Every structure is written in C-alpha cells, then in structure tokens.
C-alpha cells in the first residue's frame, strides 16, 4: 500500500481506543441503581432479546449484592459482559425505559450491567452448573456468541458440549469483530473462559466437518455466522490496499495493520462505522464513507453515526463507487452520484484520492458449508429454523446467530443460542428413549 501512516505505539493505541463508556465508581453505581423504579414486568426486560431481569440485577447493585447481580444477568445472558459494552441500548433496554415518559433520563442500564460484570470477573468468576451428568453430546460449529450461549445453556443442564472454530481464538466476532473502544479481545476471552469453566470443550483452529460430526454427536448447533464481505464487483477491487472490513477490524484488534493516509469505506452499516472510526484512530488523516442512499436510510444506529461524526468521518450520501484506480496499489476511487431510484446520475462522476478502500457492504452467506449439513434448509442463504427451539429441518441440527438472522447484534445471537440450547436439551430428553 502506498503512503501508509506509521503504526501506533502500544500506549498510543490504548489511548486512542480508550473505552467509550467509562465504568461507574461504586457509589455512583449505587446512586444510579437507586434511580430505577423497579417496574413490574419491566419494558427493559421485555425489550432485551435475552430478557435479562433488569430491575432485579439493578436492585442487587443498589443493595450491594454484586455477585448476585452478576448471576442474575448471566442466568439470562451468559455474555453479559460483552453485551453490557456493545449492546445498542438506545434501541433496546434503555430505549424502552419508562423514565423517558417521565421526562427524565433513562436508567443507564448498560453501564450498570457492566458494573456488575466487572465485579464478577474480578472475583473468581464461576456460575453454577448441574451436578449430575446428563446423557447426550453436542457439537457447536463456530465459537462465537450464539454457540457460547448455546453451550452455556447445555452445560447448565450437565450436557457435554464441544465448540469447534476455525479461528485460533474463540469468541467469534466478539473477539475479532467489534470496535476496540467498545470491546477488547481480552474481555471477550474472559467470557470464553467462563464457558470453558462450565465444562465446555473448545477446539480452535479447526475446520468443522459436518459429515463426521453428525456421526460423532447427538446434536449439532450451527453458530457459524457469515462469510467474508460481499465483493464490490467493480474494476480495481483486487488492488493492493483494498481490505474487507471484517478482515480489517480483526487484524487491527488481534494483530496489527497499517492504514493509508486517506481511507474510503464503502457502506454505512454499523460495521462500516467501526471500520471508519478505527481507520481514523489508527492514524488516517481522511476517512470517507460512501453510501448509495441518503442519510435517513443509513442502516447504522444513530448512536454509531454520532461516534463517526465525532471522529470527523466524511460522509458522501447517494454515492456509489464505480472503479478503484491505481497501478499496483490503490490511488483513487471513482464515484458516481445516485438518484432517488438508485440510478447513477449521468456526468456526476468524481474521484477521491486514497490509499485504502474498505468495502463494508454486508457479509456473504456460508452456503458451501451449510449445504454440507444434511437436510438443513436455507432460505435466501439463511438457515431456516423453528424460532422457539432453533431446530432446523433436520431435527439433529439446530442453528442461531448471524447464519439465521442475516447479521444482527451480539445479544440477538445470544438469545438464539440460548433458545437453541434449551431446544436441544428438550429434544435430547425426548429422544433418550
């Protein structure tokens, strides 16, 4: 790549990716917790896909029972730590808080949850599991949020479970795919460790083979997530300096990557924002986001958009890339304006000089892998399941997370995994004979 900016020192990296939500001090947490009205059948609990009993864990913070608070969270959501940091709370629990109607700030549920989880993980973390050993063995393909949640649910019931992941580290996108200022790999790995201490086995750096797993295990959970980012299908996308957003984020978090002086991101989803803000913090002087529709249609949450604006990301609405120019490496990107009907406006082409292009236009489906899972049905590339149980068309296979919902939040994957874990346990029970 041409014109790469120097990499950051360890200290500089830590400073630029400092946590976006600082933790509560103990007393401040107690005061905030006391503000909670303790609603009955609380809307925040309903809004949470994993239905964490929010008032219950908050009142435990107020009472000074932090371990009890953490266990109340983990009971519903074993990834309570990462969710407390990455959940878009504005459109979940905090968005549903009745305090809004009371003309007051909603309770800072996310930060309170983090307070309880931080305490838990710094005091010999452990969660209770069944004392007896249940029959049946389950393989989870993928060791991301959905599989971790599924595994925890199975381990609580004493069912043996093995998670298989192709990456060297478990945790899936929690480890590799979330903006560093929201969640660090070390925190994601704490949760992996918790599931390990519950008795789950991890096989990492291994390609799962559904054909053989089917013979070895009584049930299989597909928590495989999605594949690489869709290709742009424009000239120049194989030039040096074009990096898939998912790859880019994984590399800067777990290895190192140098960014160009000027970076162009294609797409305006939450991942695109993560990539853009990362590029900026890694030292890029200019970061552009191209999006073929307008500001209103942008899929990123408002909260993410705000972060991007604070990081001086330049947005180009109604703009689509036409081709990437450069001899060996990226030098410029040519764009065209789009009209309301998403048709290019003739003669509106313009170029942005840049050294790096990061496409972030959604991930491909892992159709090849899924097609090897005998009897599992796909709909538009997504695994079709029974929503309550996670069971697929082949009763032995269950699924959840991004491969089912097409790519949503961590908490959605956890909710899927949890339902599937319960579903598998029930199914194993019924088929014990």
């Amino acid at each position, binding site marked *: 790549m041409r014109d790469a900016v120097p990499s950051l020192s360890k200290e500089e990296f830590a400073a630029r990716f400092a946590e976006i939500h600082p933790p509560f001090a103990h*007393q401040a947490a107690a005061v905030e917790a006391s503000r909670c*009205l303790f609603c*009955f059948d*609380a809307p925040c609990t*309903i809004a949470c896909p994993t*239905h964490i009993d929010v008032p219950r864990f908050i009142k435990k913070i107020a009472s000074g029972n932090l371990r009890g608070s953490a266990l109340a969270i983990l009971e519903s959501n074993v990834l309570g730590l990462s969710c407390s940091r990455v959940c*878009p709370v504005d459109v979940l629990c905090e*968005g549903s808080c009745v*305090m809004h*109607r009371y003309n007051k700030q909603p309770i800072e549920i996310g930060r309170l949850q983090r307070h309880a989880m931080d305490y838990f993980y710094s005091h010999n973390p452990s969660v209770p599991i069944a004392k007896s050993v249940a029959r049946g063995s389950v393989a989870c393909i993928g060791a991301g949020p959905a599989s971790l949640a599924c595994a925890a649910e199975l381990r609580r019931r004493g069912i043996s479970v093995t998670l298989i992941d192709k990456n060297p580290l478990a945790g899936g996108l929690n480890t590799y795919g979330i903006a560093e200022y929201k969640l660090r790999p070390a925190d994601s790995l704490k949760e992996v460790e918790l599931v390990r201490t519950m008795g789950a086995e991890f096989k990492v750096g291994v390609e799962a083979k559904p054909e053989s797993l089917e013979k070895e295990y009584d049930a299989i959970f597909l928590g495989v997530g999605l594949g690489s980012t869709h290709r742009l299908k424009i000239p120049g996308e194989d030039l040096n300096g074009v990096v898939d957003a998912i790859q880019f984020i994984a590399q800067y978090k777990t290895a190192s990557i140098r960014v160009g002086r000027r970076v162009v991101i294609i797409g305006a989803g939450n991942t695109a924002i993560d990539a853009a803000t990362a590029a900026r913090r890694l030292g890029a002087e200019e970061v552009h986001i191209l999006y073929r529709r307008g500001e209103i249609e942008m899929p990123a949450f408002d909260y993410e958009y705000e972060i991007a604006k604070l990081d001086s990301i330049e947005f180009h609405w109604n703009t689509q890339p036409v081709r990437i120019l450069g001899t060996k490496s990226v030098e410029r990107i040519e764009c065209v304006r789009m009209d309301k009907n998403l048709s290019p406006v003739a003669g509106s082409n313009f170029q942005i000089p840049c050294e790096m292009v990061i496409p972030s236009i959604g991930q491909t489906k892992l159709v090849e892998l899924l097609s090897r899972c005998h009897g599992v049905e796909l709909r538009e590339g997504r695994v079709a399941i029974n929503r309550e149980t996670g069971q697929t068309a082949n009763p032995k296979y269950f699924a959840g997370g991004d491969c089912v919902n097409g790519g949503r939040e961590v908490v959605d994957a956890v909710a899927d995994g949890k339902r599937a874990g319960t579903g598998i346990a029930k199914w194993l029970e019924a088929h014990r004979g």
Partner: protein
Amino acid sequence: MADLTTLFAGRIRCPNPFWLASGPPANCGDQVMRAFDAGWGGAVWKTLGEPITNVSSRYSSVDLNGVRMMGLNNIELITDRPLDVNLREIYEVKKRYPHHAVIASLMVDSKREAWHEIVRRSEDAGADGLELNFGCPHGMSERGMGSAVGQVPEYCQMITEWVKEVAKTPVLVKLTPNVTDIRHVARAAKKGGADGLSAINTINSITGVDLDTFVPRPFVDGKSAHGGYCGPAVKPIALHMVQQIAGDPESSLPVSGIGGISGWRDAAEFILLGCQSVQLCTAPMHYGFRIVEDMIDGLSNWMDEKGFRTIDDFRGRSLPNVTEWKHLNLNYKIIARISHDKCIGCDLCYIACWDGAHQCIHIEGFKTPEDLLKASRSRIVLTPVEKHEMTGLHATPPIRIPRVDEDECVGCNLCWLVCPVEECITMERVDSGVPSQSWEQRTGASKC
C-alpha cells in the same frame, strides 16, 4: 409580606421561629453568631454542665437509596468546654445580637444547689431562656442525668421546681421520646412550673452493624454504644408526640418543635400542630447554616399565598383535624383512578395491589402477575425493538396501563403512594349514598 417575628412563651422574642437546637451547631459563640448572620432566629446553646470527655468517633447515619443521612445517630455528650468559656461567649453573643434568642440548655447532677447555681450563672450571662435537658438518651443517662430524669415524671417535676425557684427567664423542659407516653412527663413538667416544652430529643438507636467487623456503628475502638437518633427519618414520630402534648390540656404549654425538620415545609407542619418555634440540628449539620435562607423565604411565600400574616395566624390550625380513629367516618369511600395520559407503564401499582393490598388492579388479558411475566419472558424479540415500544417517542401502550376494579377497590391509597408520577393516580370520592357514621356511633347504636 408575612411577619415571622416570634414571641415564645410570651417572653422570648426573636426575628423568626427557626432556632438551632442544642447540639454541635450551637457549640460555641462563633458558630451561633455566624448562624444569626445567616438568618437564624435563635439558638439553644449546646448543653452546659460539668465539662465531659467525648469519644471519637461520635456519629453514624442511615442512608436511603444513595441519599445520605436520612437518619443521624450520635453518642456525643454535652459540652466539653469549660463553663466559664461558654458563659463568656453567651454574654458576647447577646451583647452583639440583642434581638436574637439565646437559650441555655442545662444539665447538672440532680442536686438542688447545682441547678440553682447553673441557672443563676446562665441568666447572669444574658440567656433569654433555659432549656432543661431531660432528654439526652446516651452516656449522660448512665450518670443519672438527661433521659434518666426525663423518664421519671417525679424527677422531672422536682428538678423543674428547683429551677423555677430561682429562674427569672422562661424555663423549657426538653422531653425524651424514649417513654411509652410522652404526656406523663410533659404533665409533670407543667406541674413543676415549666413555661414551655421542647420535643423531641433523640430516640435510642443503633443505626446499623458493620457486616465485616460485626461492630455496630459508630465504632469506638472495636465497640459501640447506643446513641440518639434524629434527622428526617424521625419527623413522623416527633410530629405525633408534639400533637400528643399540644392536644392534651394537662400538658399543654408553649412547644418548641424538634425532630427531623429540614426545611420550611416541615417547620410549617410543626407549627400547624401547635409549635411556637422549631429547632434544627441534623439539617444544619448536613448542609450548613445557609439552609435557613430558604426556610425564611419559603415559609413567608407560603404564608403570603395562604393569606397568613403572622405565625399565630396558622399555629395549631391542624390540631382540630387530628382525632381518634373511633370518630372517623366509616361510610367515606374513595377509589383509585389511573390517568391514561400520565401513566408511564411501570406497573408498580399493579404488583403493589396484588402483593400488598387487595388484588383489585389488573392488566388486561392476564389472570395473575405470574401469567403476565410468563408471557413477557417467552416473547421473541430482536434488535432494535419495535418503534412503538421506544418510550421516548410514544405514549404508553394501552396494554401496560393497569385497570382498577372500582367495585373491589377499598381506597387504601397504596397504589397512589407507590406511583412515581405526580397526579397519575388520584383517589376520588364516590358517593356511598349512606350518611356519615363513625365506629363509636355504630357500636353505640348497636348497644341500644
């Protein structure tokens, strides 16, 4: 503009009814003068007597939901400064602040001469009145003083009589609440010739136990002792005792109200139950003398709004409204109504009614709270939540607004008390169509 000028027991004049109670804020001349500069109308000097030795620590408190010092407990004794110094400072304060009230709180051994001497010396120093500390419940009581006197009507009467033999200024007896019926001691004080009563002193208390050391608070080298409890938490107890005295012809004397007063509203309530002045200690300890500014301002504004020109215009106004239960109208009926516009959907009234009252508030479509929870927890929800559930943008969904079964509602007030939203739940009178009848009337009638 309201006139807050106060004349206590016909003889103690001061610019307003707000006095510092005998305690740490009125420990020395400097404090009292700074308090007068801030606007306080009077001060009851920290109890004079033979100087004692105090311990450290001395205070502990009860916090409520992050709010500090809802209740305060102390094991501090009377003044630890030489009597001469205190008297000299009283003299100085009175010289500089002739229009403010300085009352000397007194506590000495139960010997006639000792009382005569301290009364004379205090009055010579210029005190406008005397307050006999028969209330201090800790430390001094172990030495036969304070509440040890105040708990025995005969002692109380005897010492009051001794004091009255020499006193030229009004004598107030400060009562302890640590008795079964405060009126017995109040009557004794009146018989002894007291000119007024101060109520209440602090309540025997242990504020809490440290869950690591297992020692109650406050710690003194690994041990603790019971203390005296005060602060906002004790106000209802104090109000009741004040009402008991003020409503009892045999103990009725001018009362200086004490106990949990932290603002003008509290003060107004004590005055409505008959007090001529009020005394504060915890509140100035918590926030400083400056709190008196809003007490003066707030009470004046309220009096203007109500059309009261002087304190006497509303003093004791609420006494006729306190009666015995047997006189309450059994046929008075109110029921709860929930405003659909104001309800925020917290459903606290619903669960309070189910678990703590009479099961007459309902959520449409669910037989029990457990059914409701079960349905909610089994909902499959995705991020982001549906726009209509985003509370910032929309009105409360009708499903979350509880319904009162008006036939079953007993009008207990619980839902209204738990509702966090002002004027969302209102208790409304319904015409029972039956004339007023009290328990006494009903049972009296049935006897005929």
